């Protein structure tokens, strides 16, 4: 692939970059300035979120605003900090160097944040300081004189309150003035951190800004929320509510979307004459659109909770409580919620990995998310277990069917742990992961910021992921419908289609696993979504291809036709099978490239094949 480098430095409006420590209110300020005029994407080649927005100044001039990843220093320690440093230095491929740095500073944590400002002043770019959270500092008895601070630092300083509608007025006025000259600050001879620390301390002492105490409410709240016993219990209760909501609340809207899809399909079907167009619209387009929209309720509900938890400052506490648990496999506590969400569906789970700051952890979490048994696998499990596992109890009252289901879930979790451990052990250079995570003060979540964040997730899903899912559904429809069976056909139509041919072609690959050609053919349209395999099997066995009754009619049929080793092998296959193009589309979107989804599909396919093969052989040996 060739890349064309375009000099964008003279294109478009001036670029202002927001830089600051994590939790200084950068995103809130960005939302306040740009509202919904934002574009969320990824930086080229890295799992780091890129947010750009447009803004019109009071004078009518336009400015492009870039929300750079939060950073504690300009000596990067993680890939997201690296992005910030490289963009500021004009070193990032495909990004133009900002014309102005807007250094966002939390007024309640001046000492550390002003050290970053000094660092920014050494980059040779014009710097304006947005002194944010001045309302909180004032409430705690510290009023900061922006002009005095400006004089002491030598760069313009304006006060902002990012959560108040008019909280950026002074900032807008300042941005309308000509930009200040590039802040020239030379590097000192000695230890830069200590030099800067002394300098900031002197400034703060001079301005009487060094008496602020730690946030008392946060301390009091942490006494309960991080309590060794109460903390985990409260977290457990919270997680219970969240996942109850994701499953239970989403059920009704998902049902509506499914019935609406079905109704639309029927209406269209009744209006159009039978034929290709009807098939395309009903089975391809409408079914595809329904297949995209049906994920929305879970995504909205999950992200509502995640955004509220993130905004309030609780999410790092949850990570604190779960650090030991997740640290065992080399991940951090932040991976827990995305992985748990993946039990509902890997798509919201993978989208939720955005809260993991360390891109390596994020990458590993994305990679193992599909190993969590998502709810779409349940219909397949239910069909196979119902057909093959006898409904009796073993070992003193345990239902055998339930035991098998549990084993399938456990197999997913255990292999996720193994994969995470292997990747961390052999796949990355730094073996010992650092934590060093700030526990920010608690804040009331701002409804506006939660709403904007939610809206962005919905847009990302519908625009980027939805398009791919829709296209793939139509493609699979095409594969399953063409070419039409010959007039003399005896078998089901799908057998003569491209999907059927593909299934037959793949048969040698699946035969060692004990799969027959019907299974191989059904796996092809099943790539749209795992549960589609059930109806696809129905189609292959020439049953009427409608919903739940398929499973009921299918169970005795396959029970009679398949051997037990085949059924167990297919179950093992489904623990790992990368049979969900929507997930792969999401991974591509979230990682910004094809590498991760291809790798994921490859390793899951390999694992699925191996697991099914081993299961088949062992089962055969036992049954013989």
């Amino acid at each position, binding site marked *: 692939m060739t890349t064309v480098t375009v000099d964008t430095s003279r294109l478009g409006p001036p670029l202002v970059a927001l830089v600051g420590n994590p939790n200084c209110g950068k995103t809130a300020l960005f939302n306040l300035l740009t509202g919904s005029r934002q574009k969320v994407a990824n930086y080229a080649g890295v799992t780091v979120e890129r947010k750009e927005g447009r803004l019109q100044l009071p004078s009518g001039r336009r400015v492009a605003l870039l929300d750079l990843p939060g950073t*504690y*220093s300009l*000596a990067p*320690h993680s890939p997201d900090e690296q992005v910030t440093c490289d963009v500021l230095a004009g070193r990032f491929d495909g990004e133009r160097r900002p014309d102005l740095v807007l250094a966002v500073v939390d007024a*309640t*944590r001046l*000492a*550390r944040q002003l*050290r970053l400002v000094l660092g920014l002043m050494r980059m040779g770019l014009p710097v304006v300081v947005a002194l944010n959270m001045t309302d909180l500092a004032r409430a705690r008895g510290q009023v900061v004189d922006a002009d005095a601070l400006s004089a002491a630092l030598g760069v313009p300083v304006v006060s902002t309150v990012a959560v108040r509608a008019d909280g950026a007025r002074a900032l807008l006025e300042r941005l309308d003035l000509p930009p200040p000259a590039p802040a020239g600050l030379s590097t000192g001879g000695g230890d830069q*951190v*200590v030099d800067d*620390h002394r300098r900031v301390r002197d400034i703060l002492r001079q301005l009487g800004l060094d008496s*602020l*105490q*730690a*946030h008392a409410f*946060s*301390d009091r709240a*942490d006494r309960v929320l*991080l309590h*060794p016993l109460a903390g*985990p219990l409260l977290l457990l209760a919270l997680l219970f509510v969240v996942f109850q909501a994701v499953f239970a609340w989403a059920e009704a809207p998902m049902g509506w979307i499914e019935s609406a899809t079905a109704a639309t399909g029927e209406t269209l079907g009744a209006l159009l004459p039978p034929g290709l167009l009807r098939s395309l619209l009903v089975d391809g387009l409408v079914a595809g659109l329904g297949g995209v929209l049906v994920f929305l309720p879970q995504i909205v509900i999950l992200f509502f909770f995640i955004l509220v938890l993130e905004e309030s400052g609780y999410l*790092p506490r949850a*990570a*604190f*409580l779960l*650090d*030991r648990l997740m*640290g065992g496999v080399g991940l951090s506590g932040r991976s827990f919620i995305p992985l748990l969400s993946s039990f509902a569906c890997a798509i919201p789970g993978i989208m939720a990995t955005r809260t993991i700051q360390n891109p390596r952890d994020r990458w590993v979490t994305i990679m193992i998310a599909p190993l969590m048994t998502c709810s779409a696998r349940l219909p397949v499990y239910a069909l196979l277990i119902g057909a093959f596992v006898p409904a009796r109890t073993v070992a003193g009252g345990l239902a055998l069917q339930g035991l098998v289901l549990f084993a399938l879930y456990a197999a997913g979790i255990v292999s996720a742990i193994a994969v995470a451990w292997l990747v961390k052990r052999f796949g990355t250079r*730094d073996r*010992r992961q*650092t*934590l*060093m*995570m*700030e*526990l*920010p003060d608690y804040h009331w979540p701002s409804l506006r910021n939660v709403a904007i964040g939610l809206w962005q997730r919905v847009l990302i899903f519908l625009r980027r992921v939805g398009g791919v899912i829709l296209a793939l559904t139509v493609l699979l429809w095409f594969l399953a419908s063409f070419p039409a069976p010959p007039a003399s056909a005896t078998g089901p139509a799908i057998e003569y289609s491209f999907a059927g041919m593909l299934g037959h072609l793949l048969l040698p690959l699946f035969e060692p696993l004990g799969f027959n050609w019907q299974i191989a053919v059904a796996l092809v349209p099943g790539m749209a979504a795992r549960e589609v395999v059930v109806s696809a099997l129905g189609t292959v066995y020439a049953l009427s291809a409608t919903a739940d009754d398929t499973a009921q009619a299918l169970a005795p049929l396959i029970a009679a036709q398949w051997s037990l080793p085949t059924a167990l092998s297919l179950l093992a296959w489904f623990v790992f099978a990368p049979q969900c193009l929507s997930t792969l589309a999401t991974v591509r979107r979230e990682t910004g490239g094809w590498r991760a989804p291809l790798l994921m599909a490859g390793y899951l396919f390999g694992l699925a094949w191996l697991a099914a093969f081993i299961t088949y052989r062992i089962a055969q040996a036992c049954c013989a």
Partner: protein
Amino acid sequence: MTSSDPGALHAQTLSEAPCGRRLFIHALNAASGEGQEWVARLRELGFIEGEPVQVLRRGQPGGEPLAVRVGVSTFALRRAEAACIQVMPADAS
């Protein structure tokens, strides 16, 4: 840090400090190979010689991670990270 450093007499690492005790950072040193980078990072976060620190609480099980107050900020550190920070009781300086 050599043993002739008078402060080293009272110094202990932050990873061993009891919860709630008010301490000062005496020095930062790399406990292990990766330590060099950790020390640089810790200092950028505000763990700088002379700053007041306090272990607020430890996670369970195993006393990890530690919630540490430095200045007006709170950080979660793993034990190995906290072991890079040498501290002294607030009354010893």
